[in-house]
């Protein structure tokens, strides 16, 4: 097993630990992201093999502690991937937090996949491989210190030595709480080599150092506080989905094959712990070929990147393909000298080439050494299986045997992974469909549902196109997950690069297309100024201001202003002179023609009883007095002359009463002997808009029903709307009263719809209408007639000015455009 020497205390630690289990000093400098200096996952592959055992135990601890507190589990699961990008540790966490189904998956994957699993049964109790127990022990001590959980008998000798030392430390959380000040861990060459691979996939882990600590803390807490669902867990769950994606991304890449196995719809509340375990489940599936000869190969994928996987699968199926022997073969076959491997693998190659080491190292450990630590879960297990199938290697056989035995006991895991018993499990599997790597799923052939079988069918073709499985050394296999991780994370933007030259020719993604870990590292603060659009606008404005300070263009501006002024003066003079002349001369040369509408108005007025009170609403501003006096004059004149109506003025503007007086004075009404408070009355100012109008109408004191008609004189459409609305709201009797609108020319078009809709009876708007009505009415020549010629002159002037000005403007624009074009040319 790989070990890392603690720089603080000098003692060896399992390299999957982030911190020294003796002195709690960080084994890896947290603040650095050096490639190859992340030992945590370096030996994941090794741990992969080791894990089942202690994971079982830890899981058992968790199970005992949590007593099946599902809610707790769900909340804590999400931490796993985030805390522990190496999925191995994710599994650890999930187990420690009492997820029963997670370890079984993992174990089931190792066990014969053809076995029918049962979902809820834990597998940890029964016969984990003895050599894994050693790993289990320290974990138990540190993470979940329940003494009954320990199984020292199962610890292999090689592990026991480590256990002794590790037992000196029993509080992992205390260790985790220490600041990470340790120097980089000393590593063996091969470890460094692996670390260089790890750097691809372990970048997230580096980023999440604190969270890594937290999951361990939580682990401890979970063993202490059984059923609590504390906030930190919830918080952790907030982050875990993303984390799980990251962590599993490389697995996804690897596992295109497994997709069919997880095609059930994913529940929204996915648990990352389950995700982590799913790869284990798939891993379990991957072992199926080993025990099931009918499964020809790993399930297929058309993805060329997975060529190696088919090779791997074949490797696991071929007992005569020992990993180390293969290495040499592959190297020779591909013409790749060991020393010419990429920088990440060169030391490993050298190491592997060292026969002495090879001989000394147990096969499973060799595999572990060959593995890239980070993506180990899958790849390591593969190696493990390949080893397991090696004839004559007793350890492998033991392992196999033990795993077989374990498989029987770990049926729940199979059940979970295959998702054939519980809907919940199916959901979880569906979740993994999204998250899980295909390559892992491909391993589930033994127990795979039909969908998986379909995928499996295509595997041979895939395998044919792939490199010979025998040729692939396990170190290459180890690299594959790294590439996958890269593709999913750092290099997800572009395809992985297929090497076309050199010793790696034909491989894809061996050398990342992107700087290693570029996207996995915490985003560095960009030196480039980040500015928003608003800020840019501000900056450009400032620029303009500064530029305007230095640029002097007063001449042009002045000229433009003066020309505008001249034009304005000319226009003003023209208007004043022409209109003044027409008015001064008293011209009445322009004829007026009547229209049918105005005859209707005369007829309507004729229906009003004599001496009847008529309400006149004055709702215009003094500015429109001239126009509206001229417009309302003929109507009031006719009402006064022919019906002798009594006018009651109510104003909607403060100046209304003064305007009413002026109205009487400036129309013919005043000349008819109309006296205030006798023939006409001021009802005052009516504030409050529509509410005021309604209050006025409904106020019994006003006796609104007495009015025989309502004349609304207004300069805006709002007024017409209010009166129309409120008169109708006041009841049919009031609504039936004639409503005559006298509107300013500018409000006329807007009030026309009310007339069209029959809500108002007739409307006179503007001088144009008034003059016609005056003509139809045969009343005395009034103001409208007096203004008529000037009115025509004014319109003519305007038309002339607008037309000539418009043409001039268009010509000027065209000239400017032409000039601009010429300048451009």
């Amino acid at each position, binding site marked *: 097993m790989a070990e890392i020497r603690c720089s603080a205390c000098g003692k060896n630690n399992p390299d999957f630990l982030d911190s020294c289990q003796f002195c709690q000093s960080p084994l890896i400098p947290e603040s650095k992201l050096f490639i190859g200096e992340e030992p945590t996952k370096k030996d994941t592959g090794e741990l992969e093999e080791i894990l089942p055992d202690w994971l079982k135990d830890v899981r058992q601890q968790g199970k005992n502690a949590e007593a099946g507190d599902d809610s707790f589990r769900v909340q804590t699961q999400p931490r796993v991937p985030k805390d522990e990008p190496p999925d191995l540790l994710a599994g650890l966490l999930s187990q420690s937090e009492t997820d029963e189904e997670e370890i079984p998956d993992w174990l089931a994957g190792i066990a014969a996949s053809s076995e029918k699993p049962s979902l809820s049964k834990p597998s940890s109790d029964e016969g984990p491989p003895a050599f894994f127990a050693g790993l289990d022990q320290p974990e138990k001590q540190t993470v979940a210190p329940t003494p009954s959980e320990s199984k020292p008998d199962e610890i292999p000798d090689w592990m026991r030595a480590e256990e002794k030392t590790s037992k000196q430390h029993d509080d992992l959380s205390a260790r985790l709480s220490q600041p990470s000040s340790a120097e980089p861990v000393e590593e063996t060459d091969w470890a460094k080599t692996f670390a260089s691979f790890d750097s691809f996939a372990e970048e997230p882990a580096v980023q999440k150092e604190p969270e890594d600590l937290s999951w361990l803390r939580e682990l401890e807490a979970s063993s202490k506080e059984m059923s609590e669902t504390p906030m930190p867990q919830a918080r952790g769950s907030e982050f875990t989905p993303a984390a799980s994606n990251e962590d599993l991304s490389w697995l996804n890449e690897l596992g295109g094959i497994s997709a069919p196995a997880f095609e059930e719809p994913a529940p929204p509340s996915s648990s990352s712990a389950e995700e982590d375990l799913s790869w284990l489940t798939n891993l379990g599936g991957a072992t199926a070929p080993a025990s099931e000869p009918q499964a020809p190969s790993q399930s297929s994928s058309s993805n060329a990147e997975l060529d190696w996987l088919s090779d791997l699968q074949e490797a696991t199926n071929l007992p005569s393909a020992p990993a180390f022997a293969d290495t040499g073969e592959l190297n020779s076959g591909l013409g790749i000298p060991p020393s010419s491997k990429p920088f990440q693998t060169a030391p490993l190659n050298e190491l592997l080439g060292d026969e002495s080491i090879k001989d000394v190292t147990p096969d499973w450990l060799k595999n572990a050494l060959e593995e890239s630590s980070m993506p180990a879960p899958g790849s390591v297990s593969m190696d493990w299986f390949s080893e397991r199938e090696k004839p004559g290697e007793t350890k492998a056989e033991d392992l196999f045997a033990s795993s077989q035995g374990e498989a029987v006991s770990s049926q729940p895991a199979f059940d979970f992974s295959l998702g054939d018993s519980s809907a919940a499990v199916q959901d979880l599997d569906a979740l993994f469909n999204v998250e899980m790597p295909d390559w892992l799923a491909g391993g589930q052939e033994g127990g795979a549902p039909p969908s998986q079988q379909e995928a499996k069918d295509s595997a041979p073709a895939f395998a044919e196109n792939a490199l010979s499985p025998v040729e692939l050394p396990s170190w290459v296999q180890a690299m594959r997950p790294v590439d996958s991780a890269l593709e999913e994370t750092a290099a997800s933007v572009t395809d992985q690069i297929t090497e076309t030259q050199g010793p790696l020719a034909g491989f894809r993604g061996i050398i990342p297309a992107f700087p290693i870990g570029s996207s996995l590292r915490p985003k560095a603060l960009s030196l480039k100024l980040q500015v928003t659009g608003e800020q840019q606008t501000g900056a450009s404005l400032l620029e303009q201001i500064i530029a305007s300070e230095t640029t002097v263009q007063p001449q042009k501006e002045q000229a433009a202003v003066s020309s505008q*002024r001249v034009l*304005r*003066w000319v226009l*003003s003079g023209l*208007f*004043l002179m022409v*209109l*003044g002349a027409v*008015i*001064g001369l008293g011209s009445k040369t322009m004829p007026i023609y009547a229209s049918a509408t105005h005859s209707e108005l005369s007829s309507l007025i004729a229906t009003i009883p004599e001496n009847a009170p008529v309400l006149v609403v004055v709702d215009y501003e*003094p*500015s*429109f*007095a*001239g*126009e509206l*006096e*001229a417009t309302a004059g003929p109507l009031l004149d006719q009402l006064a002359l022919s019906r002798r109506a009594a006018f009651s003025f109510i104003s909607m503007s*403060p*100046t209304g*009463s*003064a305007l009413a007086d002026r109205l009487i004075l400036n129309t013919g009404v005043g000349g008819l002997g109309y006296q205030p408070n006798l023939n006409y009355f001021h009802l*005052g*100012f009516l*504030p409050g*808009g*529509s*509410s005021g109008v309604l209050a006025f109408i409904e106020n019994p004191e006003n006796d609104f029903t007495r009015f025989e008609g309502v004349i609304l004189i207004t*300069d805006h459409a709002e007024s017409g*709307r*209010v009166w129309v*609305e409120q008169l109708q709201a006041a009841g049919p009797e009031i609504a039936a009263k004639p409503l005559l609108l006298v509107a*300013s*020319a*500018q*409000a*006329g*078009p*807007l009030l026309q*719809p009310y007339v*069209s*809709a029959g809500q108002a009876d007739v409307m006179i708007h*503007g*001088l*144009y209408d008034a003059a016609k009505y005056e003509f139809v009415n045969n009343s005395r020549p009034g103001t409208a007639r*007096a*203004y008529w010629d*000037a*009115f025509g002159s*004014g*319109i003519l002037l*305007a038309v002339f000015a607008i037309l000539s000005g418009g043409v001039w403007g268009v010509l000027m624009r065209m000239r400017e455009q032409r000039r601009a074009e010429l300048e451009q040319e």
Partner: protein
Amino acid sequence: MSFEVVSAVIGLLLTLMVFSYLIGDNPLFRLAVYLFIGVASGYAVTVIWHSVLVPRLLDPLGNPNRLAWTVVPLILSISLWAKLSPRISRLGGFAMAVIVGVGAATAIGGALTGTLIPQVEAAMDSFDSSEGAVMLAGTVLTLAYFQFGAKRAPDDTIKRGAVIELLAWLGRLFIAVTLGVLFAGVYLSALTALIERLSSIINLVKSLLGL
């Protein structure tokens, strides 16, 4: 000289002072305008005092039957004076809250019952003729023009959908015609006011000159 003549003369002078603005901003215009603002505002306050505050606030104070209903607006009215001081202006918030609340409700009520529903109904009702069809189409297109929601294109430009853009373009034509007609109406009103002013000046001059 009668009141009317004096009034007319003052009116004439002020009209000329205002017309001087056609040349540009000048002291005469300023003088006329400031005088006008003072008098108009004073007159408005007078009317409000006599038409609103006295009958609705002060008079009921002497009437025990209406006193209860007047206390609240009285207190609120007094608190409103706090608005003159930024430090204690928040005290006047209650009074403004009533105004704004009632105003918002009035605006909503007016918009719904005064415009929205009647106009929609009118648009539907008038569909039975060719004019009505044009009216309906114009109304729809005009409304479509105002679609605010848009999408960000790949080139970072913000555009509406092609169909909406087309409808909006057609709607612009209706809006342009509408605004043109309304503009012409405003011009006619202004022209009438100009004619009225010129007439009053000329008539006064004529009368003063005995012509």
